[in-house]
């Protein structure tokens, strides 16, 4: 019964998302695209934070690496549709594989610190490697994505492109989360020594989750390069990483859809409300964040669970 209701809600949301460009002005459609991109980043982070129990403060690094890869390829090699996205996903996975073997050795707050350090170092590399990343100017003038040779320039078409990428990434994570693999990850989150004594190797599972999350973050980065057509070092900096974690926590860690709601709130405050606040959106977000930690320990998703429990069966 509950599952059928969930499916129904999912279908309604999907149809509504698909219809957005038909009813919404181009600027607002652009903001919707940004929400989807950031939501995909937040969902990939939720795989680490909520499902595996690894709070990362450096996840924006893989997002940024994906964005730079897609942007650089579009500029120098090819902007033909799946190429930049596939490369961005691969780059995110490779970067996560290269750094994750160190990070997943630790847990809890230690993991938070290590990922923060790793993220910052990747940020420094992006800042210094000017020949590829454009340094502090960023990578600009990225050509529009081409599908079968024709460039995708209208905001609505770009939105559908982003939506398709988002759905692929989201569905992938959903499947992983529901699989036996996802169950093992939850087991590690709840009781790592027990999982070890059952014969599982927590290191391997955590490492696999880290690489997978990096790959999806890279995919989100690839979508960013296609939508914003500009990649700057801010996209892989501390603030982006902190906002992504914030989105997961506000939404409710471990539910995947909660992270999407959190991401929507973050992007709305930052990009839609931000200009009216003189670009100081993070101030509002910081306050929201503090309030969430106190009042909603389990985020929006916690509210929904509460309501379901109170309703008589």
């Amino acid at each position: 019964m509950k599952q059928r209701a969930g499916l129904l809600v999912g279908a309604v949301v999907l149809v509504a998302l698909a219809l957005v460009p038909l009813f919404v002005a181009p600027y607002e459609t652009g903001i919707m695209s940004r929400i989807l991109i950031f939501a995909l980043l937040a969902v990939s982070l939720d795989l680490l934070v909520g499902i595996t129990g690894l709070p990362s403060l450096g996840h924006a690094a893989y997002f940024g690496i994906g964005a730079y890869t897609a942007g650089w390829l579009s500029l120098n090699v090819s902007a033909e549709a799946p190429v930049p996205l596939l490369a961005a996903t691969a780059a995110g996975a490779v970067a996560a594989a290269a750094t994750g073997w160190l990070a997943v050795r630790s847990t809890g707050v230690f993991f938070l610190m290590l990922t923060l350090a790793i993220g910052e170092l990747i940020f420094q590399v992006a800042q210094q490697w000017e020949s590829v990343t454009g340094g502090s100017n960023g990578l600009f003038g990225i050509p529009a994505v081409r599908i079968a040779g024709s460039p995708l320039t209208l905001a609505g078409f770009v939105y559908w492109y982003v939506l398709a990428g988002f759905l692929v990434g989201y569905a992938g994570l959903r499947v992983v989360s529901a699989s036996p693999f996802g169950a093992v990850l939850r087991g590690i989150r709840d009781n790592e020594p027990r999982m070890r004594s059952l014969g599982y190797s927590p290191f391997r599972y955590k490492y696999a989750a880290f690489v997978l999350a990096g790959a999806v973050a890279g995919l989100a980065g690839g979508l960013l390069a296609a939508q914003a057509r500009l990649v700057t070092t801010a996209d892989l900096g501390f603030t982006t990483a902190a906002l992504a974690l914030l989105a997961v926590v506000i939404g409710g860690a471990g539910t995947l859809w909660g992270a999407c709601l959190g991401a929507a709130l973050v992007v709305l405050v930052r990009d839609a409300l931000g200009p009216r606040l003189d670009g100081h959106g993070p101030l509002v977000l910081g306050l929201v964040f503090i309030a969430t930690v106190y009042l909603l320990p389990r985020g929006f998703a916690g509210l929904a669970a509460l309501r379901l429990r109170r309703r008589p069966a």
Partner: protein
Amino acid sequence: MLSWFDTNLVSILNGFAIGSLLFILAVGLSIVFGMMDVLNLAHGALYLVGAYFGYQFAGDTSSWLGFGTALGTAALVGVLAGGVLSSMTEPLARRPHLDQALLTLGVALVVAELLAIFYGNDVLRVRPPPGLNGSMQVFGNTYPTYRLALIGIGVLIAVAVFVVVERTTVGALVRASVADREMVATLGVDNRLVKLAVLGVGSGLAALAGVLGGPIYGAGPGLDERVLILALVVVVIGGLGSIKGAFVGALLIGQVESLGRALVPDLASFVLFGALALVLIVRPRGLFGAPKAAV
């Protein structure tokens, strides 16, 4: 060897100056973390508050009065802020430690934005006090006097912290809390008071480091994240809750930041990461971290 030493003397001295600063910054972070498992992500924001106090009182003219006022105000405000942070995390004491870290992250975002609204986005200058604003000859190299003084201050503070923590009753209480805080609570000591005191002193030192670092790094947005990350790397390398570890880690990272950048400018970030990775692979709990039972 001698000529190598001679050409890199300035970098080595710079490394010591940065190391001094990092120690003052990291020692509070390390003890709070070691004792309460609370990662204070607002530590960098406290440093930034101190740096802006430095600009406020010692930005225009070089005077002992201004610099002294900045130091005093920063220390006081830092201690108070530490107290506020301590009472803010208290309601979360029964929740996972991550929640407390997230709370300090929110506080850090808010404080950094408020400072940016108030002081703008430019990097502001802080002037060293008179007598220290010139430079002097060190083995035939010209070197800013202020940085030499900073090395001295760092050593003084290190000695003071070491004596207090290792040789006094209060210090014994702090060390005991790092080792086993439930046992200390059983002996009738209120953990919350120890945490309040340690967080207060640690935050005061962070704000103090902001003023002291002002003449070198200035005050500007983004500085809080940079110093927070350096301090975290110091704490991870040195080991949680260890004063000796914070000292050695700070000196090490100071040299990596300075000498590393001078010798291999393109690889400096990798050197920092490499040092961190190496220490964590060889000694996962840091150089001086005690092997702690699972929490």
